[in-house]
């Protein structure tokens, strides 16, 4: 199965990963080979088969609606690339 340059560019944008033109031919080949591999799934008869999300079919637990965590902003922001006055800094979004 093949994947087009346009598909790769679209997916790279969705994934927020910059892909340079020079990388496209290798990605076309590698991703194409992977899609060929997973293409085997199409032949499987899965009529009336329920999709499986959890091996033991467990469901999400609920807990009482109580505060259990304390604020650790200082600790968490100490490892951030850039912060100021308790806020995370990013390049200007709105002029």
């Amino acid at each position, binding site marked *: 199965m093949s994947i087009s340059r346009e598909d790769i560019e679209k*997916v790279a944008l969705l*994934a927020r990963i910059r892909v340079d033109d020079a990388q496209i031919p290798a990605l076309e080949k590698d991703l194409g080979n992977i899609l060929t591999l997973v293409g085997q*799934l199409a032949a*499987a008869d899965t009529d009336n088969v329920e999709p*499986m999300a959890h091996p*033991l079919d*467990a469901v999400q637990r609920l807990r009482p609606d109580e505060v259990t965590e304390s604020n650790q902003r200082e600790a968490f922001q100490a490892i951030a*690339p850039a912060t100021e006055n308790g806020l995370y800094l990013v390049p200007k979004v709105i002029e």
Partner: protein
Amino acid sequence: MHEKTVAELSRELESGKISSVELTRHFLDRLKQEDGQYNSFITITEEQALAEARAADERRAAGQATPWTGIPFAHKDIFCTSGVRTTCGSRMLEHFVPPYDATVVAKFRQAGAVCLGKTNMDEFAMGSSNESSHFGPVTNPWGLTRGERRVAGGSSGGSAAAIAARLVPAATATDTGGSIRQPAALCGVTGIKPTYGRVSRYGMIAYASSLDQGGAMARTAEDTALMLNVMAGFDPKDSTSIDREVPDYTATLNEPLKGLRIGLPREYFSDQLSPEMATRIREAVREYEKLGATVREVSLPNASLAIAAYYVIAPAEASANLSRFDGVRYGYRCDHPKDLMDLYTRTRAEGFGTEVKRRILIGTYALSHGYYDAYYLKAQKVRRLIQQDFVNAFQEVDVLMGPISPSPAFIQGEKTDDPVTMYLEDIFTIAVNLAGLPAMSVPAGFIDGLPVGLQIIGNYFEEGRLLNAAHQFQQVTDWHLREPR
């Protein structure tokens, strides 16, 4: 001292023959002298280890020791360690120092174990050879005995190589598609991947959340049982953790195997398996027959679809999990971003390696508009077919046995050109993760001086039965005691 198992070291500490500080210094010295040739560690935490060893000796003197108090070991660098950098084998987290402990880390800390450092791994656990690590490949100690640079397997290759080289007696590991069992097999050590949900995933950096499972590696089954006694258990901080009592896994190690019903999946002895490997596995099964087990052939008719299903489900979940690495809150950030989009796209292009980016792109594609039903939903249906095969097989037998890898450790660089060739390395291990079952790799001989692993697969929560079967095998064989020299 480094020849001894965890169980033996624990008895020496208990009898006062040796202190944890002496033991820890011994292993640290070995690690610093020997690891240059293997590259099995990313970070060595000498000062913390010695402080933990001193605390362990005091705790023992106060009569409050556990079997793990004062035992040196290591964590795979996927488990967050408070105050100690945790890289997950990635440039993205090269300087990341977590502000908290993973539950598994906290449990070993409470038991008084001494962590010597963090072991090397494929980047974000994506790989079968440990060649995708940002910190360089791990070299298999057995390959070096032949003068060759062979892979240690992956993704937990650092843990496996370090144990094989006697740099640590035990190490934690994780298994999403074979990442405990395959490196254990290729390095000739014992590894167990528990039932999905048995060991907490809290603080274990996520790759594919419906498949990821933490587990144990050591030289003997008994030592991995001792590890699971610490690691296993319900954790409210992990939403898929299973609330179920944890048995003492060492209590059943000596049960006789008479009457054990072994199934050999026909599909695991296909032509993908090298003839030498098939011979070794059949020889191992014969040992079990001598121990009183019965053997029959079974079938897992959908086994051939496991790799295809995995390479939709795992990348799809990875693409969602790894979206958190945005250059804003922690981890790598590119230099001089010109706007927010540039910050995201360059941070991720520069911070992730080739294989990780490949899987994120495939996963994003599989989840994108118009493709979800054809890929992700279809793969989840196939996943149930694969699970049903195992359910059917376990109505007839107690455990399944087969190979771990198609052939022994390969030469570094041999399979890096084509990702699909590398993916096929996990052909015998992946179905277990899709089904969520527990499985082990047990040393079962050699091919041309390179170790072979026997896979033993059990029904849900039957870790005790697997460990019993592996331990009994290790009472009548000595493959697990062989040392690479």
